[in-house]
């Protein structure tokens, strides 16, 4: 039971603190505003009475932006769209924080601008400063000089205005008879000459044109100021990025310094090792070549020795042959004839071996009056077969003849029944 009460008490306490939510009151005038993106602290806006800007760029999409006080109170924020822009103005008493989130495929960016509440004097001062700035050539880089100039000029202008007002009052007090009643004013106008009226009208026109010009000048100055603020914002973001880059570079340098030996030794050791390996390889190759060379020289010497022995044997054989020739010259001639015959027969035998597998075809025409019987007998005598007939020519297929084809055809042409013989039809 006690626990349930405790829990209910806790719940009520939470609800109470939720419904109170004095969101702005917790912030002191000079306290910075903590900026959180996706519930991570990314920086702060140090805006007291001046404008302050915080620009964040990241590769991650921005989902939520929160503004918190130093004591952790949630002042405001926004939920960013998955893609595109979203802006929100978070009011902090009289001050304002303008949030602008832009999500793209590349990531998200946030621009948070603290805009302090402008007081009456601030507004007047800025108005006058704009006018002054229009009249004088403005240099964007001399921001400080610009501020001093504006303040000085404003003060001078205010002093003149106050003096003028006081003088006017004094004149009125000193000459009360000059105060003209409205009825008298109308009378004066009626009695006034046309020239005077025209002059007054002219003065009014001039005054109006001057007013218009002043208005235009104010507008252009407002634009100028907007541009200046944008430039300042860009400048501050650039400064931030430069500062972060410096930190990163320092970290990188430290990392490198941590392992200098490892990193510096590695490239020097590597070539040295490589050189040693190459040298060893060269030495091995040279040794191999020397051994080969030695072996080759030994072989050459052996071959030369063998050559000498062969030469000696040849000379001995020549000497023996010479002796034999001198003893029986007829046997030598007969042997030479046998040898030459053998040399002649070898190609024929070779050709027979090569053509033995294939039948020999040729075409013949027979002499007039040759009977079919005689033809058949001739073919049988040749141990062949008759093939196709064409235009009087008869194809004959026999076993390859032992003589060359031309000689064979010549022999056939010499036979009685053959008129002509050739290889192709």
């Amino acid at each position, binding site marked *: 039971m006690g626990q349930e009460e405790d829990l209910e008490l806790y*719940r009520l306490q939470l609800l109470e603190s939720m419904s109170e939510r004095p969101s702005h009151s917790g912030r002191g005038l000079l306290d910075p505003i903590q900026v959180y993106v996706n519930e991570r602290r990314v920086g702060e806006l140090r805006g007291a009475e001046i404008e302050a800007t915080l620009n964040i760029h990241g590769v991650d999409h921005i989902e939520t932006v929160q503004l918190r006080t130093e004591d*952790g109170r949630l002042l405001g924020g926004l939920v960013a769209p998955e893609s595109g822009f*979203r802006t929100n103005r978070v009011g902090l008493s009289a001050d304002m924080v303008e949030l602008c989130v832009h999500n793209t495929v590349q990531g998200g960016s946030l621009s948070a601008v603290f805009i302090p509440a402008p007081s009456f004097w601030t507004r007047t001062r800025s108005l006058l400063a704009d006018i002054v700035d229009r009249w004088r050539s403005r240099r964007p880089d001399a921001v400080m000089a610009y501020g001093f100039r504006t303040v000085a000029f404003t003060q001078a202008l205010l002093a003149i205005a106050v003096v003028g007002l006081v003088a006017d009052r004094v004149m009125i007090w000193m000459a009360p008879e000059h105060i003209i009643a409205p009825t008298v004013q109308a009378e004066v106008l009626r009695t006034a000459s046309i020239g005077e009226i025209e002059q007054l009208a002219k003065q009014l026109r001039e005054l109006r044109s001057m007013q218009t010009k002043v208005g235009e000048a104010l507008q252009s100055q407002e634009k100028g100021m907007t541009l200046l603020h944008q430039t300042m914002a860009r400048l501050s973001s650039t400064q931030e990025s430069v500062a972060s880059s410096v930190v990163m570079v320092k970290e990188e340098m430290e990392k490198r310094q941590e392992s200098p030996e490892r990193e510096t030794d590695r490239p020097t050791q590597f070539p040295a090792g490589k050189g040693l390996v190459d040298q060893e390889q060269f030495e091995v190759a040279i040794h191999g070549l020397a051994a080969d060379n030695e072996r080759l020289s030994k072989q050459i010497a052996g071959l030369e020795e063998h050559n000498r022995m062969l030469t000696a044997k040849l000379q001995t054989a020549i000497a023996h042959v010479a002796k034999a020739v001198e003893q029986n010259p007829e046997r030598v001639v007969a042997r030479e004839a046998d040898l030459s015959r053998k040399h002649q027969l070898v190609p024929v035998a070779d050709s027979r071996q090569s053509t033995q597998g294939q039948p020999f075809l040729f075409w013949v025409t027979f002499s007039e009056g040759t009977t079919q019987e005689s033809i058949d007998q001739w073919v049988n005598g040749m141990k062949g077969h008759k093939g196709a007939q064409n235009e009087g020519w008869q194809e004959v297929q026999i076993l390859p003849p032992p003589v060359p084809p031309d000689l064979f055809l010549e022999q056939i042409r010499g036979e009685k029944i053959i008129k002509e013989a050739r290889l192709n039809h």
Partner: protein
Amino acid sequence: MQNTLRKSHIIADRTATVSRLEEVVATSDEFDQVVAQALPILLDRAAGYTKRFLRETGQWNDDIEHEKFALRWGSEYLERFLVCGRTEVPCRPLFLFDSLVAKQHSRPEPFCYHPDLLKPLGRFLDGLVARAVVSRDALIALYHHSYGWGAGDVIAVTGLNGLESQRIYKNFRRWRESGWQRTMDEIGLTKMELAELENQRQRHRQRFNSEAERLIRVAQGHYRKSEPDHYPCLSRSQWGEMFSQGYGCDYRIWHLALCLDCMQTAWGLGSSGSSAGEKPRLELQVRP
């Protein structure tokens, strides 16, 4: 009979409020108005979702600690919804709220859960570190609660300059005045529980501190993820360069408060370097 009537009235009111939450609100003011009337319903709804998440992830127990945990995170979600939801108009508040809670629960480790962090000491530490992530006052106060240091010690240890020093004093003052009490209320620590913690600290100092060190490491490990990505742990030489060259004030303040190990590593590099004695050990302080 009266009870029954009262209950039926409450049910009818709740139904009407819920159906109003389901309708479209067109302006931020309308949103504020509708949501302000439905705070209890939204808180219970968020706590219910958190309970379901814990059940589904096997982290739930039917006890008051878990109920308080669910309520605490429900109120966190509700606070964010109150502020961010008004920028989503036109919308149907109830559906927007549901989607916001679902989005939180779809993240890896949406909150720091550890059974020991649900006990009074764990709740105290978890609440303190969780608050330090969103509140600079709490962050600076973490130095006091962890090591018992005052503003001057913090300035010396972190090596801050004059302008930052003034801020540290203000952080301490605000924490003492209201921050600590608000944090204790938010985490639901009763006066009795706080008194008991104080008692344990005095009677069993060593055991109390070693247990606190174990638990604070769990909490710090989780919540340090909320730091900017470029705030990792550094070596002593890196810390040394940062201190000597005077950059990275935020880095020093945020990281050293949320990392016991780096505090040991960077010990003595601040302006207290010359007088630095033994490295600091966790000496948990319950009161601000």
